């Protein structure tokens, strides 16, 4: 299905281009650190917002602030990874308009790797750091067991894979129309916002949609129920908690199909 040499080429090509962008961003050191610090603060204020809500109430859908912190950190980490590694793909439409995509097609590095590593921003590490901190703070109160650690690892890796897939699949819309960028935001950042909260506060339909249509509930909700040792308020099957990694892999496979379909249907602007 996926050619092995292509994966290797893509990986090494990705990092060569990303490295170039990292060196470039380091030229403007003040700007780099200012942007990195402010991205950290944006994220922190986001969580402080939730903290303020908990100033008014003691629990949300039966979840304490620490448990919400666990959900927040887990989904935020998945999004932050995806945003750093493939997030730039949301500018696909612009690359098409400016003719950059045509240039990329004749270069000896797989197209997807080039599109994703374009304008690689190391400063996004700050968002990852913030989510790691929140997750670590929340994790300190979890009763860890070997199986729970395993589920947690699967949650982070699989969650990142699911977010990466959503970024790429929705960006493919831009092969047909470049105006749909904001539409994708509703799923990526919107998906992140909704999974920051315990899904128990939303109607059951929302949970079903996030399980069977856009599988964002697997990014943190199902594994967190197991790790935190909580009963599922919606009584979904318990083994859903172990599926994150599998669903991440499945989504990546679907993503390669969609991407290829998109590239095959791509017509240059010709200018």
């Amino acid at each position: 299905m996926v050619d092995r040499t292509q994966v290797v080429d893509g990986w090494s090509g990705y990092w060569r281009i990303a490295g170039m962008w990292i060196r470039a961003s380091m030229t403007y050191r003040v700007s780099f650190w200012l942007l990195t610090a402010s991205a950290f603060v944006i994220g922190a204020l986001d969580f402080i917002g939730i903290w303020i809500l908990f100033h008014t109430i003691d629990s949300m859908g039966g979840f304490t602030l620490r448990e919400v912190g666990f959900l927040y950190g887990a989904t935020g980490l998945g999004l932050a990874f995806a945003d750093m590694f493939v997030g730039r793909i949301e500018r696909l439409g612009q690359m098409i308009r400016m003719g950059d995509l045509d240039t990329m097609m004749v270069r000896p590095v797989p197209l997807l790797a080039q599109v994703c590593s374009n304008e690689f921003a190391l400063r996004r590490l700050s968002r990852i750091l913030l989510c790691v901190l929140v997750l670590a703070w929340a994790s300190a109160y979890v009763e860890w067991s070997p199986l729970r650690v395993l589920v947690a690892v699967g949650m982070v890796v699989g969650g990142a894979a699911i977010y990466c897939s959503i970024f790429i699949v929705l960006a493919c819309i831009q092969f047909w129309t470049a105006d749909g960028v904001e539409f994708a935001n509703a799923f990526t950042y919107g998906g992140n916002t909704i999974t920051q909260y315990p899904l128990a506060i939303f109607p059951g339909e929302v949970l079903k949609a996030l399980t069977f249509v856009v599988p964002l509930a697997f990014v943190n909700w199902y594994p967190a129920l197991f790790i935190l040792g909580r009963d599922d308020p919606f009584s979904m099957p318990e083994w859903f908690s172990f599926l994150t990694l599998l669903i991440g892999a499945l989504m990546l496979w679907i993503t390669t199909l969609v991407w290829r379909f998109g590239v095959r249907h791509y017509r240059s602007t010709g200018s």
Partner: protein
Amino acid sequence: MLYVAIATRAFRRYSTYTLATLAGIFTNCIFGIISCFVFMEVWQQRPDAGGYDLTDALTYVWVGQAMLMTVAMFGGGSPDDLAARIRSGDVVIDFYRPVGLLGWYLAADLGRATYHLLTRGLGPALVGALLFDLRSPPGPWGWVAFLVAVVLAVLVSFALRMLVAITSFWLFDESGPRTVLVVMNSFFTGLTVPLVLFPGALRELAMALPWAAMLQVPADIWLGQRTGAEVWSGLGFGAAWALGLMIACLTMLRLAERRVVVQGG
């Protein structure tokens, strides 16, 4: 008349991208719906949190979604054009023009704001009203006061974005200050958490900062939380910040103008 012409052109420029507008409205609605469920959980446990009832809280969400693009909380609008022109040097042409630079860019931003209010503002508000039980402003004067508050909100937001753009004269790259502004915008306007829920001193601080004029004050006028003299003090608050920040813009522009060197050739 000239300013009207600039504003109309800006309005038309944004209205070219119909699909982008629709996608944006969709995204606003998704975020609005998420917030509504979160607020329902909060206000079910504390039915009088922040002096709001549940209907107030849900209405606040949709006023917030409607104001988000109108006051360009995530940046953008004509100050971005100015920043780009400062980097490229085209700004000297702006200085040549027989029109004030600030007025020119303000007219363009008002055109953009009008377009966003009618589409990204009205669209989500209507969807919100269909899905949830919302409150409307108290009588015709409530509507008038709200609209005045919206204009003041745009003026304050424009002046803040303009100040950031003008820093390009010194920094060449304004992305640092711009990100700082977006941070302040998303937190101190009360977009995610209404300022009325902020605890103690933080609330006092937030209520005194210019960002309060961008959402909290217009929303309180809409909700009828401010009545009589409080409406006037709210509008006065916005007007004072708008005026003060505009004067700051003018002062910085004057300083910058002296720095600009036109290379002959």
